[in-house]
């Protein structure tokens, strides 16, 4: 589904991604993990076609992400780290606005999703008056308006309380069970453990580890880590 080959990104002289190779299967939920400055956001932006790699290739469902951006974007929903919506408008107005831009979206489909995600009752509130959790939900729902096969989320639960985080993680799990491929970056190990089936672990632009949750746990038993968070920490070093 997603293939990266020799993917490198440089900002000036600084190499932020170093010759990365990986293949993500369809329907996988992949946690993108690493300390700050590891290159997580840059990698996600390149996969989402927002940014181009300096060298190497990325293919999304057989499409060259650099050369066939428009077609590739139809397959991807990208959720930025910021709550990128119009805060002065209501949630409904935002959904309608992005729905019109996405063209493929129908009000019926996003209304159903809003009901499933318990956002329907808040649709007529201005975004600035919504709770942090509901703002984050809206941020994700907007990325899904065109019903993409792949969802790329860059720290989508930053700054919200635990119960809202749980809700979002459960909602995303439901999406995973619907067959969506999800790339999810976060610093919350518990969240990652609950949601993800495999992990891409980065450090200083290098791909340290790519494998299933099972493999991470195996690594943990070798290092006798107490929990998942500690294991991830051990891998990053």
């Amino acid at each position, binding site marked *: 589904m997603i293939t990266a080959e020799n993917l490198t990104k440089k900002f000036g002289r600084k190499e932020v991604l170093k010759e990365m190779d990986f293949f993500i299967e369809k329907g996988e939920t992949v946690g993108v993990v690493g300390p700050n400055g590891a290159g997580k956001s840059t990698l996600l932006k390149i996969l989402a076609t927002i940014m181009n790699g300096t060298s190497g290739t990325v293919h999304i469902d057989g499409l060259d992400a650099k050369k066939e951006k428009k077609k590739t974007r139809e397959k991807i929903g990208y959720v930025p780290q910021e709550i*990128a*919506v*119009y805060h002065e408008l209501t949630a409904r107005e935002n959904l309608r606005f992005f729905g*019109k831009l996405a063209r493929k979206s129908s009000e019926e489909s996003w209304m159903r999703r809003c009901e499933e995600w318990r956002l329907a009752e808040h649709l007529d509130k201005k975004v600035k008056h919504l709770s942090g959790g509901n703002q984050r939900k809206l941020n994700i729902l907007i990325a899904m308006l065109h019903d993409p096969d792949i969802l790329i989320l860059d720290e989508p639960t930053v700054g919200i309380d635990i119960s809202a985080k749980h809700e979002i993680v459960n909602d995303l799990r439901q999406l995973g069970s619907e067959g969506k491929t999800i790339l999810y970056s976060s610093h919350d190990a518990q969240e990652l453990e609950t949601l993800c089936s495999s992990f891409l672990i980065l450090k200083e632009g290098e791909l340290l580890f790519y494998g299933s949750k099972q493999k991470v746990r195996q690594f943990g038993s070798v290092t006798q880590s107490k929990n998942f968070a500690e294991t991830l920490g051990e891998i990053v070093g």
Partner: protein
Amino acid sequence: MVWTIAITRIKLLLQSPWSWIGLVIPVLLLGFLSMSVEKTADATKIPVVIVDEDQSQYSKTVIERVSKYPAVAVRTGTEEEARNKIETQKAAIGFLLPKGFMENIQKNNEDELVTMWLSTGTISHGLVREIFASEVKRLSSNSYGANTVLNTYGKSKKLDEQEQAAVWKDAWEYSDNHWEPKPLMTVDYKVGATKERAQAEESGAVSIYVPGMLVLLMLFSFLWNSWPIKDRDSGMRARVPYSVGGFSKYWIGNALGVLILQLQLLVLFIGFGWWKDELALSAATIIGLVGYVLFLNALSLLFAYFVHAARTWQAVTLFVVLASSLLSGTFFPSDELSQFLESAAQWTPQYWIISSFHQQTLWIPLVFIGISIILYGLSTIKAGDSA
């Protein structure tokens, strides 16, 4: 797609009630200021009160002619009102034209014909006394001339009553015409001053409506075009182009939204200016203003690309609006400035739009539109590259 973005931008700009007020207030404020300036100009004139007991053609002529002097503000009233105004120093000087004023002038009985009251606190009555005396003298001289002609000419020719009246009138008018100054040359108003200014100079008051309108149009263009900075902070500058499938649609769509609002503001300005007689309307003026607004939209958009913080944008807005308005000769002719500043004025849009009003030409608006297209292209490419 572009239209959806434009409509959403308008919605965003008009979200709060303040935004709606923001559309109307500048127009009303400018209208109010414009009227205040006229009133202030009136307040700087010497207040004169005249009591017309004669209510004749001559007394009315004197009042009318004195009123035309830019240095005086004439009010008429009864003797009691006039005395009251003088005592309370609301008038600097008062005149009473008694019954028989016209008749006495025609008979050349000028001695102690007019009663004059002076307010104790003023020193400006000398000028008004001169003006008033010269107007009375003018009528008296005309009558004296007409009487002399009739006495000399009429006796020798033995004219009937009707012919006598015609000769008297001719002589009177001939004499009166000599009081009207005939300029040896005509004065063309300087480029850089508005028509309103030229008209206002005649009446002694300076209208600030057109200059104020140009400044406010520029100010609102910059205020409304702060969206690229806000969108960058909120992540929308990346997200909307991503959703719409291209940066140019996002950029131009938002610019179009702001432009529609600017044009709405322009319509209000033009409507109010036309209603209050502050703006002489013609096709060239309207096209000129539309070109000016388009140029401001494109210019502020390009500036917004370079600025990254809301506070910096406020400073840029203030600087551009103030500097260009002061330099451009909008409020005073640019040729009163030093040569360097005079040439700098030619780099401001206000200078050119005012020139366009004077010349009633279409080439300046067309140049505005041409430059706007280039600026739109530049900002779209530059901002698209960095998005």
